[in-house]
């Protein structure tokens, strides 16, 4: 709707609503009349103590109290008046947004943008508009292997001639054409998730993905990889040439297709590679490295979240201050470490939001501790009780998540 059309609609709305004589609207009218009278100096001498609130202020008051319809009505009246401040559009936009009317909210945000004279405010409004556009309900994530038929799985377990499938960011070398194609597609999806949602950045590189036939083939061609691992990433610089490489396995020990490879290992190792490139020589906390890699998987592993909740509610849990500093030499309870790392990373990512999480990673890259990085990304002064408060908030989050997941499990049974 154009502003002109909207203004005429608002005028009509205002006139028609006068006929309704609802107490709410009469109240607005009274406020406006009092304000106008004060402005005209009618009550000038009497206005010793406080003036009646200006319409903008009463709209803000309604908005802050959650009376969105009332706030919008006041704004409508204001905007219909000649010479009205177009800044009031943002109140209407926020009201529509909170009333789950994204289309109207976007329209109002756009009107506000025309008079916005502040860079941070403009960035905020654009972000709100983006959120409104993305307001469509999300589909529950599923694992890629779940979409494969038995026939496809069998076909992808076949070992044939070496093939290479290339996409924008990946060159997949495998012994099965369908599998190479699938892995290339999934690798692009993973990268989009990692560089789009988890840690926004450009990734103008090409990665070689080698899919080795089985564990023995993998061990022979990916030297130095831990025996237990089903995949690994590698970033090497030699003679000024950077090589990015991921090694995977095609088959399980029973010669069936390794769904673990496509569901978990591929996105996990891709994320590690991106993280390694991002942090460079700067140390990155292990919990975050592993947590982000698990978060990059297309569907979060609920068993791990349940384990984290159980560990935190009992005595087996790793305390937050310990978790933040753990490295490979501290791996006494690998399962708990991974579970809690996922839980804490997911907590930080969801609570901070994309922008702040990105700033948090940037601060870590600059060499700050986790606590400093968080405080910096929140733009707050150092607080000696910050870590304690954060630990308590995470624990509450993890336990609540555990309860929700158990309830879901019970319901699905």
């Amino acid at each position, binding site marked *: 709707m154009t502003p002109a059309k909207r203004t005429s609609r608002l005028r009509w709305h205002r006139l028609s609503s006068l006929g309704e004589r609802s107490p709410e609207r009469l109240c607005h009218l009274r406020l406006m009349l009092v304000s106008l009278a004060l402005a005209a100096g009618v009550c000038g001498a009497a206005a010793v*103590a406080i003036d009646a609130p200006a319409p903008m*202020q009463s709209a*803000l008051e309604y908005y802050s109290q959650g009376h969105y319809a009332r706030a919008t009505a006041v704004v409508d009246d204001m905007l219909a008046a000649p010479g009205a401040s177009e800044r009031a559009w*943002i109140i209407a936009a*926020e009201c529509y947004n909170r009333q789950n009317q994204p289309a109207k909210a976007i329209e109002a945000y756009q009107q506000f943008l025309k008079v916005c*004279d502040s860079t941070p405010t403009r960035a905020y409004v654009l972000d709100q508009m983006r959120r409104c556009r993305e307001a469509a309900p999300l589909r529950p994530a599923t694992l890629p292997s779940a979409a494969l038929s038995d026939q496809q799985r069998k076909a992808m377990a076949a070992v044939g001639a070496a093939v290479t499938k290339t996409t924008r960011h990946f060159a997949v070398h495998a012994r099965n054409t369908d599998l190479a194609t699938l892995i290339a597609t999934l690798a692009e999806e993973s990268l989009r998730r990692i560089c789009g949602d988890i840690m926004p950045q450009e990734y103008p590189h090409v990665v070689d993905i080698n899919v080795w036939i089985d564990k023995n083939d993998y061990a022979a061609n990916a030297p130095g990889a831990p025996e237990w691992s089903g995949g690994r990433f590698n970033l090497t610089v030699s003679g000024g040439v950077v090589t990015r490489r991921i090694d995977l396995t095609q088959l399980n020990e029973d010669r069936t297709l390794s769904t673990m490879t496509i569901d978990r290992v591929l996105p996990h190792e891709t994320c590690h590679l991106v993280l390694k490139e991002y942090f460079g020589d700067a140390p990155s906390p292990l919990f975050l490295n592993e947590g982000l890699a698990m978060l990059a998987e297309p569907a979060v592993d609920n068993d791990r979240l349940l384990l984290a909740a159980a560990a935190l509610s009992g005595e087996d849990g790793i305390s937050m201050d310990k978790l933040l500093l753990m490295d490979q030499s501290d791996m006494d309870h690998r399962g708990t470490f991974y579970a809690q790392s996922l839980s804490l990373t997911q907590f930080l990512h969801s609570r901070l939001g994309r922008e702040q999480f990105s700033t948090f990673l940037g601060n870590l890259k600059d060499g700050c501790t986790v606590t400093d990085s968080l405080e910096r990304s929140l733009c707050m002064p150092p607080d000696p009780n910050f870590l304690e408060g954060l630990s308590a*908030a995470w624990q509450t989050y993890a336990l609540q998540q555990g309860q929700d997941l158990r309830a879901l499990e019970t319901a699905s049974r």
Partner: protein
Amino acid sequence: MRRLVFLLSLTLAWPAVLSADQVVTSDGRTFSGKVSVEGDSVTIEMPYGSLTLPRSQVVRIEIQETPEEQLEHRLKEIDSKSETELLGVGLWAVRQGLDRQARKIFQQVLDLNPENVQARQGLGYARIDNAWVEFDKAIELARSKLEAGDVAALSGRILPALRQIARGVEQQILVEDLTGQTQLRGGKFAEAARTYAVLGAKGKDNRFLRFAAIAEILAANTDGMYVLTEPYPPSAGLMGRQPQVQAGPASLSRAIVLDAALKDLARQRMEAGKKLLAEAKDAQATNKALAESKFAAAAKSFEAADALVADITRSYRVEITRLRIATIRQQVDADAKRFDAAMAALGNKNMSRNDYRESVMKLIHHVNAVRTSLTDIMELAKPYRRELILEIQWAQTDLNKLTAMRDLLVGELDDAG
């Protein structure tokens, strides 16, 4: 004002010191000040210095009655049982700057009439809720009323009363700040902007920078609406607490919204500091002087941000200090290498006593250089004891070792002498 003029003949015996204030000389000039006469000299102490004249050049000295003496006369002339007359003298004493005496007189007025408004005000009492309270208490009550939203009482009665009893700049600033807050709470944004602009121009420390920043925020949002780009306080979301203000439009009549706006302004200044800090870090390896000037500029931006939100840039200031310490440590390492080289030369040569003595003196010189650097580190790190504890302890340990070494070398020097 009554003035007694004494014409004193130079032949009279003068007291050693006179509380007089004007000396008229034979050439017609007049000097004002505290006069003392000693022998054949007359000295006039003036605010900018003293002047001594021969007695022969002085025609006369006019002695003015001091305010204290005038007060004494006034008190003698009035009826001490008259509330009005006593009050008049008390008010006169205030105008003369005789605060201590004025308080005594006001107290006498209150003995005659405990409800005398001017005497109460003179003694620093304001009437709030039918009770007389002193300034500090009155300010506290006013703050509570502001929190309770009683803007009418504040702007109508309390602030004018506080303005009456505010003594000195500090108290006046407190009252004006409270006035600004009341204007904001009452939605009088233009008035509040003026109040804070005036307050902001009164000084240069953090408090005044904050006042100026409030004026700046109000000037940019004349309708009193501020758009928060994130919930406030910023940690609420992470900690799972309900924010006090959600992101979006909000009224600056709420104190918490003003805090959020100040934080945003502080962030802008912090971002400027961060940019300078990054430039300083880039320059550190190649151009130390440029790096140092960028560090200083960054520190200034951070200070400006901290004026609005206390310690908001502390971690950046710690980072600057850490980088500076690292630079000093490089210097320390270079000095230590020079010391080692001098030490090695000392062991290898078959030296004369004088050469040996000179070498030991060089060693002490190197030790002194390192000690100075370590002391600099300790000084730099002192404000950030919690964050830089390792740097402090490291420097302290090295300093202790060097002090022991220096003592040894000085002893050697004594033996060699």
